[in-house]
């Protein structure tokens, strides 16, 4: 057997920081409801963070892992949120086994339709073309629902029927927290499986040099369309959970504003990792919650947030996670030799 000079143990050692962060975040999420039993407002905030983390991950699957600049990720989030809200209002149906898969399917189909137009052309689309295309889709949808009385127009839809499992209703608090945690965990593990697979290797290569991959025989557009559609599905799930958790969905939940927020979650936490968007979402939402209560800061908060993010982009482009996780570790290894000691 051939021998590889570098001991594989060193590769394994580099993976531990990322894994440690992942486990730490998981531990924090598991113990949070027990530590905050008397603080419903904070449990609600933590639930919201997890739901929005799924949304952040969906954007990062596009941008951080595949190089697709989706500036309209909120489109899938918002439309799925509206779909489950309308089904609850008009059909009086909110069974979890029906509405969550439906929301995911809505996000998937919508993203796929958009991908057909934006990504599946004969030539590889430019980043600006995709960014403007998705942004336009998101903006057009926001304007459309803003003037459509059937969906509540500018007021959106409120008093959304509670999510049900048999006769059990998911209300704000421990029940919804558990559901959000399980949803985040499942989405995270599925995404982790994908980005660590041979498919993930294609995404990593595509992100670095699309043209090279085309000359190796990859139809890059198909890989982009698949990832974009999958990300739309995840955004659809988070939109539905958000809708049920907040009891409200409005035009602003599908517009460029929320789409840009997803970009900020990822930039702050660290793009190209799955845990980065979770950390970024938590940091932004916690800061927003804490600082918006301080009157002196409240009106300047968006400016402060903007400045913080500008500094991060300039001086720490790898985000908060980049402080502890190296670039090599972030990208990882995909081959069998990194997993087995046959060559070591």
């Amino acid at each position, binding site marked *: 057997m051939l021998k590889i000079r570098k001991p594989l143990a060193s*590769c394994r050692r580099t993976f531990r920081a990322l894994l440690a962060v992942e486990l730490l975040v998981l531990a924090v999420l598991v113990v949070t409801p027990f530590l905050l039993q008397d603080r419903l407002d904070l449990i609600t905030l933590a639930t919201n963070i997890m739901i929005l983390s799924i949304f952040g991950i969906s954007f990062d699957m596009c941008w951080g892992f595949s190089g697709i600049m989706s500036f309209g990720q909120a489109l899938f989030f918002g439309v799925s949120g509206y779909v489950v809200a309308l089904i609850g209002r008009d059909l009086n149906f909110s069974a979890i086994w029906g509405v969550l898969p439906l929301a995911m399917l809505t996000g998937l189909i919508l993203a796929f339709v958009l991908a057909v137009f934006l990504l599946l052309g004969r030539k590889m689309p430019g980043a600006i073309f995709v960014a403007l295309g998705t942004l336009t889709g998101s903006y057009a949808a926001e304007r459309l629902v803003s003037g459509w009385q059937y969906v509540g127009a500018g007021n959106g839809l409120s008093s959304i029927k509670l999510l049900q499992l048999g006769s059990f209703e998911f209300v704000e608090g421990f029940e919804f927290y558990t559901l959000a945690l399980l949803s985040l965990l499942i989405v995270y593990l599925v995404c982790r499986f994908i980005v660590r697979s041979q498919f993930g290797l294609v995404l990593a290569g595509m992100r*670095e040099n699309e*043209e090279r991959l*085309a000359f*190796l025989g990859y*139809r890059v557009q198909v890989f982009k369309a698949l990832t974009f559609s999958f990300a739309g599905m995840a955004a659809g799930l988070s939109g539905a959970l958000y809708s049920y958790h907040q009891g409200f969905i409005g035009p602003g939940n599908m517009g460029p504003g929320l789409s840009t927020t997803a970009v900020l979650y990822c930039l702050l936490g660290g793009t190209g990792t799955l845990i980065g968007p979770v950390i970024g979402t938590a940091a932004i939402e916690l800061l927003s919650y804490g600082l918006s209560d301080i009157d002196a800061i409240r009106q300047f908060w968006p400016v402060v947030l903007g400045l913080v993010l500008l500094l991060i982009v300039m001086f720490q482009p790898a985000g908060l996670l980049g402080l502890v996780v190296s670039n090599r570790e972030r990208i990882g*290894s995909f*081959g069998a*030799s990194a997993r087995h000691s046959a*060559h070591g």
Partner: protein
Amino acid sequence: MADTAPLLEVAGVSKVFGALRALDDVSVAVKPGTFHGLIGPNGSGKSTLLKAIAGAHLPTAGTIRFAQWDITTWAPFQRARIGLSLKFQITAVLRELSVYDNILLALQSHESAWSLVWSRTRRRLDAQIMRALDRFRLANRANDLAGELSHGEQQWLEIAMALAPGPKLLLLDEPTGGMSPEERRMTGELLLPIKAECALVIVEHDLDFIKNICDHLTVLDQGRVLGDGTVREIEESPEIQKVYTSRV
């Protein structure tokens, strides 16, 4: 060999960029199992021709046939899937990935997306990857990032990537560019054994290198074919000698 049908047939290909006619009615035929060199002064159209064959540029006029298919307007990925493989002039290895993963990426290109999600071929390809790396003296660098390799090693890695999927025709654009004389000699040694596996079209400025490994040469000048023949025929052509002594 003389009666063998060409593997690649470039017929009357022209390529115009604005006011520049980079290729002008170029016809070239490459037979299976041959090493075919494209030579000529700077700006003669060698790299443009190679890119037209690989699909990076679509010809303005003319046809390109490969293994009986008319591939003139095919996308690069389609050409790669029927056995055309390109090594870029400027090294295009994936610097952020390991050397091992660069080869894995090249080898798994024909797998379906579904198979890749389930990583069905990762273990099966392991031995093949290590053989490809060993052949180009990169086995001991398998776990290093491709960006950490020396320039010469990156060139070898890219040739190994282009060769890994088992192409029928390998297109090499200046494989020894930026290499030391010793690395050039070693590159020649590494390339010669692949004659048993596929045909080769090579663009190279180092005439000694190209004469040592090629069976057939096409000389381009100002986008036109100036001469075409065996290495000896080209060497003995006074017209071609004149171009080289006056312009190279």
